[in-house]
C-alpha cells in the first residue's frame, strides 16, 4: 500500500485483533503498543511486534500521546491506527502524527476538534439542512437552563458540550428538579471532560437510535453504508446493534443516509465516521444527535450487510486512495445483529466482573462472527472496559439473524466470570424485541426489571 508499510496499532482488546487482521490481509507489517498487563495478550501474539509502553493504568500507557508517537518513530512505523476509545478522537494524537510525518488512520485533527464540540456539531448539521432536536445554546446557570427548558418543553436532557458516552447527560422531567440535576450534570461533565459547559435539549421519550456509517476520502467523496439501529442501550451504553433498522422504511432510509452524507460533506470529512440520529417514533421524524469520528465498536454489523471491510477502507483512504467501491455498488443484503458480550453480572446490576476466564468456547458456523481477544485462561483486567467479545450473526432476514443469534448465544461458553450472555438470551426471546417494538429506554424501563423478576429465565 503506497505510503503505508508498517502500522502502529495504538489500542488493545478485540479492536486490536480486528485491526491486525486487516493489516495482515493488506500485507502491512504491524506493531502493537501494549501496557504491562497486555504483554502476552492475543493481539500481542498476532502482531509482528509488540512494544511495552507503560504500566497497566491507561493514563500511563494507552493515553500517552508522546509515548505512542515515540513508539511509532522508534519502530519505523509510518502510520498509527488508534482504534476506538483511548486517543481515537483526541485531536492531540492526530496532530502529533501530522507533525512527525506519520499517517493517522482517522479523520483530520481539525474534524476531531469540531465534531468533539457537540454544540458546534449541532450548528453544522443545521447548516447542512438537517433537523436538530430543539435545544439551547450553552446555559451558564440553572436559571438559564430553566428558561431554555420551558422553551423546548419538558422533559429535557441536560448535555455536556464536550460530551460522549452518556457522561454529564441527565434527564429532567420537572422544572423543580432542574437546579439539583444541573449541578450534577455539570459536575460530572467537569470530571469526565475537564469542561463543565452544559446545554439543554428536548428529550424524545419514544425514540430509536439510528446511526449512519459514512466514509470519506481525500478527494471530497463521501459514501454511506446504510444505517445501524442501536436502540438497545443501558445507561447510554449500547448493548445490541443491528442493520438494517426494523423501524426504517426504504423512503426514510434514503432520507437519513442522504442527511448523513450532507453533514460529512459539510466539513469535508475524511475516513470512517458515524452520524447519529434520534428517530422520534411518535412523529416519524429524525434529528441529528452527534457525529462519532472513529471506527465504532458496532462496525461489524455494517460489514456483514454490505460486504465491505471498513478497517481496510480506513487504511485505503488514509493512504490517499479512494474507496474500493462507489455508492452505487454498495448493496444492503440480509440482516445482521451484534450482541456485546461484557464481563458484567446482569443479575447484580451489571456490576463489572473482572477475573480469570477458566473456559472460553465461542460459537462458529455459517453466518456467525466473533470478534474477541479472549481465550481460556485469559485474565480480564480491571483496568480496561468490560467488552469481551462481539457476537455477530447474519441471516437472509431479521428472523433468521435472530434465530442464529439465539443458537450462537446458547453455544457460547464462558466460565470463571459472569457475562451478559444470559441477558442477551433474554432479549433475543422477548416478544417486544422480536416485533421490533422497542425504544432507547426499553432496556432500562422494562427489560432490566423483568429480567430481575424472572431470575434471568425468559420462559418463566
Amino acid at each position, binding site marked *: 500500500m503506497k505510503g503505508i508499510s508498517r502500522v502502529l496499532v495504538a489500542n488493545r482488546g478485540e479492536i486490536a485483533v480486528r485491526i491486525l487482521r486487516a493489516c495482515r490481509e493488506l500485507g502491512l507489517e504491524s506493531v502493537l503498543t501494549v501496557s504491562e498487563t497486555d504483554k502476552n495478550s492475543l493481539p500481542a501474539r498476532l502482531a509482528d511486534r509488540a512494544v*511495552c509502553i*507503560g*504500566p497497566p493504568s491507561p493514563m500511563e500507557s494507552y493515553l500517552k500521546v*508522546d*509515548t505512542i508517537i515515540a*513508539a511509532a518513530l*522508534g*519502530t519505523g512505523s509510518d502510520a498509527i491506527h488508534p482504534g476506538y476509545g483511548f486517543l481515537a478522537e483526541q485531536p492531540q494524537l492526530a496532530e502529533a502524527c501530522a507533525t512527525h510525518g506519520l499517517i493517522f488512520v482517522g479523520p483530520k485533527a481539525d474534524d476531531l476538534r469540531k465534531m468533539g464540540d457537540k454544540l458546534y456539531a449541532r450548528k453544522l448539521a443545521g447548516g447542512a439542512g438537517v433537523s436538530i432536536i430543539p435545544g439551547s445554546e450553552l446555559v451558564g446557570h440553572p436559571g438559564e437552563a430553566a428558561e431554555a427548558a420551558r422553551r423546548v418543553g419538558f422533559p429535557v436532557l441536560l448535555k455536556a458540550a464536550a460530551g460522549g458516552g452518556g457522561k454529564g447527560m441527565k434527564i429532567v422531567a420537572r422544572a423543580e428538579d432542574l437546579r439539583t440535576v444541573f449541578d450534577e450534570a455539570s459536575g460530572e461533565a467537569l470530571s469526565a471532560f475537564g469542561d463543565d459547559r452544559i446545554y439543554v435539549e428536548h428529550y424524545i421519550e419514544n425514540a430509536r437510535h439510528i446511526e449512519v456509517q459514512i466514509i470519506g476520502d481525500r478527494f471530497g467523496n463521501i459514501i454511506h453504508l446504510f444505517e445501524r439501529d442501536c436502540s438497545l442501550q443501558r445507561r447510554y451504553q449500547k448493548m445490541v446493534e443491528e442493520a438494517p433498522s426494523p423501524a426504517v422504511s426504504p423512503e426514510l432510509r434514503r432520507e437519513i443516509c442522504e442527511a448523513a452524507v450532507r453533514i460529512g460533506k459539510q466539513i469535508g470529512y475524511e475516513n470512517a465516521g458515524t452520524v447519529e440520529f434520534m428517530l422520534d417514533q411518535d412523529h416519524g421524524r429524525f434529528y441529528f444527535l452527534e457525529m462519532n469520528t472513529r471506527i465504532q465498536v458496532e462496525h461489524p454489523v455494517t460489514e456483514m450487510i454490505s460486504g465491505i471491510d471498513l478497517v481496510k477502507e480506513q487504511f485505503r483512504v488514509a493512504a490517499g486512495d479512494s474507496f474500493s467501491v462507489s455508492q452505487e455498488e454498495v448493496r444492503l443484503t440480509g440482516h445482521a445483529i451484534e450482541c456485546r458480550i461484557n464481563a458484567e453480572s446482569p443479575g447484580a446490576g451489571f456490576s463489572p466482573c473482572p477475573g480469570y476466564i477458566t473456559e472460553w468456547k465461542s460459537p462458529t458456523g455459517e453466518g456467525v462472527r466473533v470478534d474477541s481477544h479472549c481465550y481460556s485462561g485469559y485474565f480480564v483486567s480491571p483496568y480496561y472496559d468490560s467488552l469481551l467479545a462481539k457476537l455477530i450473526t447474519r441471516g437472509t432476514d431479521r428472523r433468521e439473524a435472530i434465530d442464529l443469534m439465539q443458537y450462537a448465544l446458547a453455544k457460547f461458553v464462558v466460565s470463571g466470570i459472569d457475562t451478559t450472555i444470559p441477558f442477551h438470551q433474554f432479549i433475543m426471546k422477548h416478544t417486544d424485541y422480536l416485533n421490533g417494538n422497542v425504544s432507547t429506554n426499553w432496556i432500562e424501563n422494562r427489560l432490566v426489571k423483568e429480567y430481575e423478576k424472572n431470575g434471568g429465565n425468559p420462559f418463566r
Partner: protein
Amino acid sequence: MDTISQDEVIQILRIVEESTFDELCLETGDFKLIVKKHGGSELNQRSSRAGEILGHPEAVQERQSVAMGENQAEPGKAASVPEKDRREIEAMGGNPEEGCIPIRSPMLGTFYRAPKPGAPPFVEVGRWISADDSVCIIEVMKLFNTVKANIRGRIAKVCAENGQMVEYQQTLFLVEEVDGAGETDKEEIAS
C-alpha cells in the same frame, strides 16, 4: 581473541586465586568475565561468588566447582530471583542464578548512554555505581529523562543499544549487587 575456552577460564581463576587481587574484570568481544574473591555476607553469596560469566552457564558451573569445591549452586537461592526477572535475564543472555539485578527503563523512549553526543557514557561495564548515580537518559519526544541506578553495585552488562528505542521495563543494565539493599533482597523479605 574472541572467545575463551573453559581451560583458559580455569587458568585465569587459578591465577586470581593465587594472586593478591580480590577481583578481575575481563572483557573481550562479546565475552565478559568478572571474578571476585572472598564472598560478602551470607545474604550476598549469590552475587559475590568468586566468578561470573554472563551468557556461559556451563563455564560458570565449571568455575564454581573450581572456586568452591563441592559447594555447587544452591537451587533454593537461585529460585529467589523473581521468576519474571529470571526469564528476562535469561532472554538478555544473562544468567539469573548469578544474582545480577536489572536496571529497567521507566518508560518507552530512546536510550542514550551519554549525557550528550560525543560525551563519555555515564557508566561502563565494571564501573561501581551507587543508588544516586545517573546511568543513562531516556528521551521521549525531546524530553530527556535521566535514569538513576537506584541500586548499589557494579555494572555487569549493558543490555540496550545506544540510540535505540527501549520499551517500558526493558532491562537496560545488569548490576551485580553488593550491599544487600537492592530489589532482590527486598523481594526476598517480602516473600
